């Protein structure tokens, strides 16, 4: 089966294929002898191609556009929440159900151990193959998913177990049934109640941080973003489709992606993310175990730091963290002029 590839991964994949072929030759006595006969050193040839591959990879990944980041965040081979939980944690016991009427497979959660400490791990869950994707509703949570998540978070808080959430959703479900079951209220209530949880919360954005659907489980004391994850108020396609600036054309999603400043690097710059976890060269899916190890260490380090914070201080800091987010200015009445930033001013300043 061919692995799905992004366009800019193709030159890398070609070299990967070449390396694999060379390795197969090296393992094949006959071919090996033939190569020796031709004075070809397969080992050094492999090293040479690997170097070239890594160089290409470095170049490609040094020049990712915001749209490329969106593609990386949505990469079909990217590790998902359960991949990380299984790699980072032990003794995961998945807990199900909202105790109201449903169990939403688009959000998973349960108790497990990280470095010997019990945590509550919760995250959006996408599916790998078509069947599982549909089962998981592409990671778009329904109201019952948010309610299950809140139930589990409150359970964890009662038993004083810290909470780790994994964010990876295109958006919350928005169909008729979601509306009937109060998707807006479910998200809003989660966000509000997360400010009351008396345990540390670490949020890890591992893929798509899709607007309210992400935020519904993403209020935390620390927000970690994977290098190739994104966090956005609106999918760039929808943004492009709405705004005349992008010709109301979904095809111009890449322009919208650039305008929205939705990359992990921007979130860090805006002080909405606290740190970025580097991914293996080429992205987490090229080496999921290594990616998980680095993320796991980052989460553990944050949890360790938060463990010593007294609960009232923790809750107060959480409040202040979100209370202070925003970019605005306070203007004296007399100075009231339209606040146009310098690079949008036409003509000389007065």
């Amino acid at each position, binding site marked *: 089966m061919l692995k799905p590839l992004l366009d800019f991964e193709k030159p890398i994949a070609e070299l990967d294929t070449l390396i694999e072929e060379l390795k197969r030759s090296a393992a094949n006595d006959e071919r090996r002898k033939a190569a020796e006969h031709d004075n070809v050193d397969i080992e050094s040839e492999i090293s040479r191609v690997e170097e070239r591959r890594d160089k290409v990879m470095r170049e490609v990944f040094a020049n990712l556009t915001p749209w490329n980041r969106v593609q990386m965040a949505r990469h079909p081979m990217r590790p998902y929440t359960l991949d990380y939980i299984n790699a980072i944690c032990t003794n995961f016991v998945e807990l199900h159900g909202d105790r109201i009427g449903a169990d939403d497979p688009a959000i998973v959660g349960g108790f497990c151990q990280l470095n010997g400490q019990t945590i509550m791990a919760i995250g959006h869950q996408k599916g790998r193959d078509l069947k599982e994707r549909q089962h998981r509703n592409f990671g778009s949570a329904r109201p019952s998913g948010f309610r299950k998540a809140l139930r589990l978070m409150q359970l964890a808080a009662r038993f004083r177990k810290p909470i780790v959430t994994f964010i990876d959703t295109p958006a919350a479900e928005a169909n008729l049934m979601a509306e009937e079951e*109060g998707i*807006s*209220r479910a998200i809003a209530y989660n966000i*509000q109640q997360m400010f009351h949880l008396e345990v540390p919360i670490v949020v890890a954005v591992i893929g798509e941080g899709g607007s309210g659907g992400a935020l519904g489980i993403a209020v935390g004391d620390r927000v970690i973003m994977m290098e190739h994850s994104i966090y956005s108020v609106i999918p760039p396609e929808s943004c492009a489709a709405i705004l005349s600036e992008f010709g109301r054309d979904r095809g111009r999603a890449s322009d919208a992606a650039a305008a929205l400043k939705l990359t992990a690097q921007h979130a860090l710059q805006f002080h909405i993310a606290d740190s970025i976890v580097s991914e293996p060269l080429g992205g987490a899916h090229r080496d999921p175990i290594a990616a998980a190890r680095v993320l796991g260490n980052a989460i553990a380090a944050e949890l360790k730091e938060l463990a010593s914070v007294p609960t009232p201080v923790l809750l107060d800091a959480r409040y202040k963290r979100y209370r202070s987010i*925003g*970019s605005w200015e306070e203007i004296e009445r007399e100075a*009231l002029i339209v606040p146009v930033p310098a*690079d949008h001013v036409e*003509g000389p300043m007065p």
Partner: protein
Amino acid sequence: MRAKSRWFTKPSGRNGSAVTNMPEGLWVKCPRCAEIHFAKDIERNLRICTKCDYHYRLHAYERIDLTVDEGSFVKINDDVMSVDPLGFPGYPEKLARAISSTGLTDAVVCGEALIDGRRCVISAADFDFLGGSMGSAVGERLVRAMELSVELRIPFVLFTANGGGARMFEGLYSLMQMAKTSAGLAKMERAAVPYIVVLTDPTMAGVYASYASLGDIILAEPGALIGFAGRRVGNQDMGMKLPDDFQSSEFQFRCGMVDQIVHRRELRSTLATLLMLLAEEGSDVKTSA
């Protein structure tokens, strides 16, 4: 482009509002029943169609005028202004246009006021200001209003009409206003200070999925558009027939999201009764207007 205009117009309404939303001209055609009315008749009828009861949208100051005791409104947070943190194409121009056309400094107006003699913090959004959308300035204004409510221990009464949801021109900052306003409401919840929401046409997306859904008591005007995702999105994704009243006040009431649908004519008295009922023991003294 550099806007030269000052964006606050001379106050003319009872509470210092600029009357801007009166339909232009002598006649007005009802968007629901298509009846042609004298504009004056609609105006006299609290902006409700005299034939089909359609509730026209109100501007922020019109809303406040209809709700609070005459002369009691004291504006707050009005100097918290939006900036363009992302350098988003077209945003500064849109902002300038909204400011000069509405006479407002951003999409929500906040203040302290009396309703039937009872103190409260009040806030009203204006759909004509970028669809009433929530950017950083709106978030900051609302949280300040909530904090004032907590400080004074007086209820916070909020009118929505934030059809635009989060203001995407501010990217992640605007998304985070959902968390910011909800943080403020978590604080109100802990302080046990009442928060009453009145959902008005239209209230969608990031606003409905944050502070608009979190009222201790949630009222709605009849026939308002209230929902999560745009109707088109819903239609597309579902391939199923939507109920006729999808995403209306009535739909949300049926789904248990709204305490009462209140006719505009009853709104002030319902709010007054609620403020009376929710007054703290021993503090239930009316302030004379």
